[in-house]
């Protein structure tokens, strides 16, 4: 066999291999120019946003109680953060600052109404979100690394403007960034993500 035919076979092999390549299924962020003009709380189906408020009432904090580990905040949140509170935080909600989100990671306690298994059971693949002060967030959903931008909080609102990450199937996790019209409330070191009706989608706890 001469080198030419071998080189041809090598090229053909690479072409065949390329055709077996997995499908490209990455979530691409919105364009910078689009993002710049996206009005908060308006349309923008690709833009997930979070209404963030800090509940400071002692009674509400008490509601969390010891059952927060299995979704106690979720039930509290559902009562205190209905649809009407998403656009105008009530007097019992203090708009959060970015500083509230910073520091440590957020791990899920409850996803889609179900308690999340302990970290040990996740075998070091426990999902998390971490907010950085320069407007970036990092996340791990147990299967995929995600990175993107968030803005706010302003007037209690936090928006996930864009993100990039693989969408490899990860049955145990809800991609909060894929959802639209979410709200959230925050109590101490608990963060709940809500749907547009105020139902709890996920509850996170801060892990230092």
């Amino acid at each position, binding site marked *: 066999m001469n080198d030419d035919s071998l080189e041809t076979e*090598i090229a053909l*092999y690479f072409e065949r*291999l390329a055709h077996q*390549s*997995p499908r*490209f299924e990455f979530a691409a*962020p919105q364009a910078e120019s689009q993002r710049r003009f996206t009005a908060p709380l308006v349309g923008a189906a690709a833009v997930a946003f979070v209404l963030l408020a800090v509940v400071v009432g002692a009674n509400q904090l008490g509601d969390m109680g010891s059952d927060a580990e299995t979704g106690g905040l979720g039930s509290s949140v559902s009562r205190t953060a209905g649809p009407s509170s998403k656009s105008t935080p009530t007097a019992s909600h203090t708009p959060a600052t970015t500083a509230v989100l910073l520091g440590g990671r957020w791990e899920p306690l409850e996803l889609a109404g179900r308690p999340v298994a302990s970290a040990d059971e996740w075998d070091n693949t426990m999902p998390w979100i971490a907010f950085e002060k320069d407007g970036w967030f990092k996340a791990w959903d147990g299967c995929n690394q995600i*990175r993107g931008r968030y803005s706010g909080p302003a007037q209690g609102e936090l928006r996930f403007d864009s993100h*990039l990450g693989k969408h490899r199937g990860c049955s145990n996790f809800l991609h909060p960034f894929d959802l639209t019209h979410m709200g959230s409330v925050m109590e101490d070191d608990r963060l709940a993500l809500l749907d547009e009706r105020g139902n709890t989608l996920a509850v996170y706890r801060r892990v230092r």
Partner: protein
Amino acid sequence: MRPVEQSFDAFVAARGPQLLRLAYVMTGEVQTAEDITQTTLLRMHRRWRSIRHPYSYARQAITHGAIDHKRRESREVLLPNDAITDKFVYSTSIAEEPAMAELLPDLVQSLPTRQRVALVLRYFEHLDTLEIASVMGIRASSVRSALARAIATLRESLAEHRARGGAR
């Protein structure tokens, strides 16, 4: 040079599949290829405004990602290449020599990482020696050497297979 306002998502849509294929051809592993591609795109996302030649940047990052991954893997797995070679050399029970196309996958995958990556850049990306040297961050003479050794190894392996009775 890309337009300043060319969007990152447009680049991902246009070039993403191509980059994933490149990573897959270099590594031969789905998950590794996805991880390398994602790491590359995430890094580019953050530095997007300062990247003047996105595809060149991405190709170089994926190349180094593939080499680094194999380097890490080689510290974790004992002699995977030897295992593949042994399996091939002593597979004398094959009744007929498989077509070269069937032999090449194992042979190419058993090449040292740098040689395999150089082959991909030459025969898949169709780069010349200087371009390969730039992408891999090595000298042109090293590229020529890597390519020559890779071709020689493949040719010798195929000849050896014939000598062991693989040829009809």
